């Protein structure tokens, strides 16, 4: 749990660096601190974790794995933030600090062992994100995104809290183990309060992860927020939301599988169709990525629908593959938008001729998101589908494969415009930071795609 303390201290340290105008030290200090937190969390791997802080948190392998991927994604995103925040305003240190505070909330979310920690983790993260969504104070789109995100987030918190209250009323405790024991001890006589609690928790968490029919805020918020913040929201935050969702259902509600499985099944199929079909009609690359993130939420819900011992690992692989590919996509989007001022597909025309490296990494990312073999995305989809097949959800897998085919269509659209459409354009100005992030992420995507062994059976 040292990672949590390190990050908290780091966030305050960065705030002080901003106070003393040490602008050049901000990024290095943040990255070193994140690396330290990453190392500290990996050191706790297989340490036979027991609940700590009076049973509030449990830093087991599941939590270590998700903490690590969240910290790594944050580091990659911060690397491309070089010179990004300076364009928005003077208060760069505050932005780093708020991102770090959101990361602290995420750490609490993935390692909770008590419903109060789930609530506090989600809220630390969300309140930070409300601010981040609106950091372009004079840009109307950013304002709108912040207000929409804030109202929808607070609204969904209400449902989550009512769910927690009902679970508490039925079981008499907020502790995950105690709730599980309550479910096991009363196989027939579970109070109706408990069932309404589970339903409300599903609604509240579906809002947070952006699953249909509670997804309507996602495209607007993702499009309106600054691109770097969108990258953070659609990768790290989504991963953490799924980790929390999965942890809750794996520990507490697994015995009630028959009750909530049909609900989640409908939600996940609906999410897939809405996400993919709407993404087909988008003209803006950023908005297309927002819808694609909705559809990926649908794929990740598969692991929860077909809950089993392998679910944790398949969500981990899928979320890592998706996060890394999305980071490439958003990084390229930032570069292209900086040059052309637009995020439409047309602004990618002819990119391959002028910037072959950037075009290549974006191609790898798109293939990974589409789930083409030899990329990490394929391994993620493969694990997801095989978990679902092992539980005999055959129709669901068929529908998902149909959706994967639709997905290939819109992911290829950007590849086609980069390679096969010519346009008069200048070379996109990249920086070493961007090149490192793009190259590293593309390499990771291919390595995981070719040798999935070292990530696919962690726990």
């Amino acid at each position, binding site marked *: 749990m040292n990672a949590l303390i390190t990050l908290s201290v780091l966030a305050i340290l960065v705030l002080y660096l901003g106070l003393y105008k040490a602008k050049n030290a901000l990024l290095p200090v943040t990255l070193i601190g994140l690396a330290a937190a990453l190392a500290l969390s990996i050191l706790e791997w297989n340490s036979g974790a027991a609940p700590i802080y009076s049973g509030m948190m449990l830093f087991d392998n599941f939590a270590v794995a998700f903490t690590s991927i969240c910290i790594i994604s944050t580091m990659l995103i911060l690397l491309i933030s070089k010179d990004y925040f300076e364009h928005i305003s003077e208060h760069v240190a505050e932005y780093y600090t708020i991102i770090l505070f959101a990361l602290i909330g995420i750490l609490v979310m993935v390692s909770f062992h008590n419903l109060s920690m789930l609530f506090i983790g989600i*809220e630390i993260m969300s*309140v930070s994100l409300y601010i981040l969504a609106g950091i372009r104070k004079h840009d109307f789109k950013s304002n709108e995104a912040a*207000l*929409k995100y804030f109202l929808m987030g607070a609204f969904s918190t209400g449902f989550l809290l*009512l769910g927690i209250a009902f679970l*508490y009323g039925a079981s008499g*405790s907020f502790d995950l183990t105690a709730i599980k024991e309550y479910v096991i001890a009363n196989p027939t006589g579970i109070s109706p309060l408990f069932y309404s609690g589970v339903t409300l928790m599903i609604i509240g968490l579906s809002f947070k992860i952006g699953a249909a029919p509670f997804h309507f805020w996602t*495209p607007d918020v993702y499009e309106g927020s600054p691109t770097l913040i969108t990258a953070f929201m659609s990768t790290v935050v989504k991963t953490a939301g799924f980790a929390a969702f999965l942890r809750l259902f794996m520990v507490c509600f697994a015995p009630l599988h028959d009750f909530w499985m049909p609900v989640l099944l409908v939600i996940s199929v609906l999410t897939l169709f809405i996400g993919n079909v709407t993404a087909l009609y988008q003209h803006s690359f950023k908005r297309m990525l927002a819808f694609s993130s909705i559809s990926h939420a649908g794929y990740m819900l598969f692991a929860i629908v077909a809950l089993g011992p392998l679910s944790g690992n398949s969500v981990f692989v899928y979320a890592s593959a998706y996060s890394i590919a999305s980071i490439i996509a958003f990084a390229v989007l930032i570069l292209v938008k900086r040059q052309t001022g637009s995020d439409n597909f047309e602004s990618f025309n002819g990119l391959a001729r002028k910037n072959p490296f950037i075009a290549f990494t974006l191609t790898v990312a798109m293939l990974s998101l589409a789930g083409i073999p030899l990329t990490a995305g394929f391994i993620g989809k493969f694990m997801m589908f095989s978990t679902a097949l092992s539980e005999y959800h055959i129709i669901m897998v068929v529908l998902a494969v149909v959706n994967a085919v639709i997905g290939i269509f819109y992911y290829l659209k950007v590849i086609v415009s980069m390679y096969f459409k010519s346009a008069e354009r200048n070379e996109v100005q990249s920086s070493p930071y961007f090149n490192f992030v793009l190259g590293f992420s593309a390499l990771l995507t291919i390595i995981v795609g070719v040798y999935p062994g070292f990530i696919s059976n962690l726990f």
Partner: protein
Amino acid sequence: MENVTQAIQGVPLNHYILLCTIIFSIGVIGVLIRRNAIVIFMSVELMLNAVNLLLTAFSVHHNDPSGQVFVFFIMALAAAEVAVGLAIIVMIFRNTNSTDVNILNKLKW
């Protein structure tokens, strides 16, 4: 005063659940039908306070203090959300001179 306390203790748990669900539903309906950002925000607070009341009732019913501790967490969080939320609403008001959510229609496909 004694009589009042006794009378309150005589209220069955189901009544609390019903009351809280009604207050919560008023909050939800308020969020869905009102168009002013501040009123929507107040409706959200109503939802949170319905949960607070319910948690307190359950806490007494189970004779377990952790429910009441949770209420403090919710209150602290609601305060934090007010700070951020009002800041966002003020920012919007400065740019548009309105707190009506219907003007939030720039982001569409």
